[in-house]
């Protein structure tokens, strides 16, 4: 597919009208905007950072089904087959696997082109190491983290490094947790090269520091004496924000051993990298982005389009009015604000769409937080047709040109099924294609 960046057939880039408005700057919204611009659709985007800054960098496709059995699948595509058979309304059932693959390929290529290369096995999930020392099944793994997964698999001799002053990341913990699976793992705590007066270290600050070579040299000097024959060195995710590849390669050369990173407690550097990278892409394509703004109200114009009133979430004051032929609603769930839970029921606040949900609040959650069945409320959300259009109470598309994508969709529990990024990317792709077919036949 050839990117068609400038030649918009639609309205001019005056940010008062567009073909397609994407509501949400989470993974689903960002992916939708990028997919739409690849197709030459004149798009505008609105949203406040939400899930994306909490992202670990891992791109889950499909890992667990049925969740009650805790069955972890080696092959995510087989898992998708299984889940769409058992839950015919699952968002993955709305598009063929070939499209999901294509969506992922395009997305990963974009990431690579932007300097955030991913590694994945086409037909298998990988087990990645988390801060807690658990191994989580996922699909797409940032190259900087994939090396750890490989090192564990091949049992390389490894030194895990943590830092005085960095909370919530303990090399000893990782060593303890992984001891049985990874006997060649050792740990050490060192001081991070001087970055400022405060000892309370934040990963973002450390990552920014490592963008500079002198700090990498200092860090390598600290680490080298502890190597003790280690072939690879693991660290919290701090390998820069904009130049991760270079930082990583340089550190490896300076230390004299391979390096990899593990994402820290959210919000962490890997989420920030994706956000910065995607926003840069959007800007470079000249796409109007109303960052840190929300759509406060939606009206309908005479020719089937939408009028979006955009403004400050805090003051509720409207600063822009945007006309759009079509809208993709990628508002996320409760955290993102795409859904709102009142004391009596869950609503979709912007369009007033019906929300699929358990009949009463008593049934929203299980009494054990880790109940293997998962909390029923996490399957709640917006129901759609095969063209990703939200349904009204009668089961028909609520609006001809309104689409929904991402975590806001019903009949999926991405947190338990391990399909968060996958659903966002795949449904964003599906929604954009549906808009393209529908609005510009």
């Amino acid at each position, binding site marked *: 597919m050839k990117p068609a960046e400038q030649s918009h057939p639609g309205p001019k880039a005056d940010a008062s009208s567009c073909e397609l408005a994407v509501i949400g700057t989470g993974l689903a919204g960002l992916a939708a905007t990028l997919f739409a611009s690849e197709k030459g659709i004149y798009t505008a985007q609105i949203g406040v950072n939400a*899930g994306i800054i*909490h992202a*670990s960098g*891992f791109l*889950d496709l499909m890992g*667990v089904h049925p969740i009650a059995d*805790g069955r*972890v699948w080696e092959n995510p595509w087989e898992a998708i087959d299984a889940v769409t058979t058992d839950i015919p309304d699952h968002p993955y059932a709305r598009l063929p696997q070939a499209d999901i693959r294509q969506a992922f390929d395009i997305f990963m290529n974009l990431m690579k082109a932007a300097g955030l290369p991913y590694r994945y096995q086409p037909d298998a999930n990988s087990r990645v190491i*988390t*801060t*807690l*020392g*658990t*191994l*989580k*099944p996922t699909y797409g793994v940032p190259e900087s983290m994939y090396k750890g997964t490989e090192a564990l698999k091949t049992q390389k001799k490894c030194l895990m490094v943590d830092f005085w*002053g960095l*909370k*919530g*990341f*303990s090399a*000893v*913990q990782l060593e*303890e*947790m992984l*001891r049985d699976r990874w006997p060649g793992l050792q740990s050490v*705590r060192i001081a991070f090269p001087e970055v400022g007066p405060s*000892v*309370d270290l934040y990963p973002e600050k450390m990552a920014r520091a490592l963008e500079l070579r002198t700090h990498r040299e200092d860090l390598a000097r600290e680490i080298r004496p502890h190597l003790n024959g280690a072939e690879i060195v693991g660290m919290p995710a701090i390998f820069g924000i904009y130049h991760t590849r270079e930082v990583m390669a340089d550190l490896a050369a300076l230390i004299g051993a391979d390096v990899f990173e593990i*994402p820290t*407690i*959210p919000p962490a550097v890997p989420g920030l990298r994706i956000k910065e990278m995607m926003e840069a892409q959007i800007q470079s394509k000249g796409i109007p982005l109303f960052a840190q703004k929300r759509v406060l109200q939606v009206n309908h114009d005479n020719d089937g389009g939408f009028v979006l009133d955009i403004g400050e979430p805090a003051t509720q004051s409207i600063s822009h009015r945007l006309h759009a032929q079509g809208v993709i609603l990628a508002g996320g*769930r*409760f*955290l993102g604000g795409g859904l*709102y*839970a*009142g*004391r009596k029921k869950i609503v979709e606040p912007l369009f007033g769409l019906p929300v699929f949900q358990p009949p*009463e*609040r*008593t049934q*929203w*959650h*299980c*009494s*054990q*937080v*880790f*109940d*293997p069945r*998962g*909390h029923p*409320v*996490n399957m709640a959300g917006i129901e759609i047709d095969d063209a990703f259009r939200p349904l009204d109470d009668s089961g028909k598309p609520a609006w001809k040109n309104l689409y929904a994508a991402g975590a806001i969709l019903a009949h999926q529990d*991405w*947190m*338990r099924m*391990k399909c*968060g990024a996958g659903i966002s990317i795949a449904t964003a792709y599906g929604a954009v294609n549906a808009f393209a077919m529908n609005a510009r036949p």
Partner: protein
Amino acid sequence: MGLIESNSLKTQVLIIGGGATGTGVARDLALRGVNCILVEKKDINAGASGANHGLLHSGARYVSNDPESAKKCMDENRILKQMAPDCIEDTGGFFAAVQGDDERFVADFPTYCEKAGLPCTPMDIKDAREQEPALSEKTIAAYAVEDASIDPFKLVLENITHAQQLGCQFFRNTKVTGVKKSGRQIKAVELLDKDSGKAFCIETEMVVNATGAWAGQVAGLVGADIDVIYSKGTLLITHNRMTHRVINRLRPPSDADILVPGGTVSILGTTSARMKTLEDIRPTVEEVDYIVDEGAVMLPALETKRYIRAYSGVRPLVGTGSQGNDRSVSRSFDLIDHAEDDIDNFVTITGGKLTTFRLMAEKTADLVCDRLGVSTPCQTRTTSMLSHHETQWAVPGFSSRMWLEHHDPDDLLLCECEMVPQSAIEEILASFHVFEKEADLNGISKRSRVGKGGCQGAFCSIRIAAFLYDRGVISANEGIDNIRDFLNARWKGQQCLLWDMPMAAAELQEAMHCGLFGLELR
């Protein structure tokens, strides 16, 4: 008969139950120089003492139906304000009636107070609403009383810490499973160390059963019979403090008619529902909705308020014949001498109130000392509660105040919501050594504000677990078990009030702990 193993421990008095009453008895006895051991099956404040309203009653609530309790409350209220000022915020209280409330009761209230000897000052309604703007526009009467807010966590920690300093031993996670008797005497109490799974014995001259709602179960182990009815009450914590004073609804005691301020929050409650068992006591969605709806009649802002937690406790009602309304039963306490059950060295102290815990401890200790032939009189009327540094971390706002005033540049905030630093966790860990037991996240949260702030444990649990690994306190995959147990314990009080912002917070927690870490997969 060789009943007692040679390696068993020995004491004069064995106290069962680490709530306000048990720890109060321990301190009272220790102050009289009596040697004692306190055993608790979970941890301090595991029962009603950790799940109550925190109201230091003036007594006014009981003037209409239980004047004897009212009087006792008033006396103890005044003693505790003198002896334990660090545990009490002397807020004062209002009784307020709204349109539709029983006007006869409103009119009789001052007379009831006068009869019980309780001060109560009628308020001009305009003044009352100026002083407490949260009161409904429909307020029709208001009286000022001597209510106050008491911090039960600190109170119990002070009791046990003081008792320990005076030589009392405390075993947590140690459950009474039976006794060894000879004739009319208990010779030893059989215990289970729940951490190691080991059974052991303590030889003792007297046994005090201070197990609150469990008093019947424990008495049963000894072969004595107490008829205990369980009455569950549920409470809600608001996100921020709503009033300066305690606000009571001026009507015969009923549901959801008291709001008690405590530090930066307010606590709304309560309900009463008879329960068949003590297993899995937790607040429900229905109770929460009912409390909010009822409370909003007196304080309308409660309708839209954010709530951060709910919890439930159980009141033991001993040997009542009355049906249905558990509030009409006397809340004066039950001190039972089991000589009538043919056991000479076993006493039960249950019922009562947090407000009267000191008096309950005094009467119990008097009886015990009488049996032991100890003539030293009670000291707790006149001996101040010490304020121990390590107990302060449980007090809302203390940790953040300390941190903002001064902190070591090397120190780190492990709990960012409530500002609990690494050094505080160190201090709490050190206090665990007294029990010769390892600390865990739940134990640390009992002794600090950890997990009680905005994140409700989602983030601080990870930081503290990492710290516990670094310190070698936990190993292998214990950290994961710790986090799971801790989040599950917090969940108990969250699950029923997940709407509005807390719903988003719950989603973030699930995204992190399940979506990212996969903690539900085992």
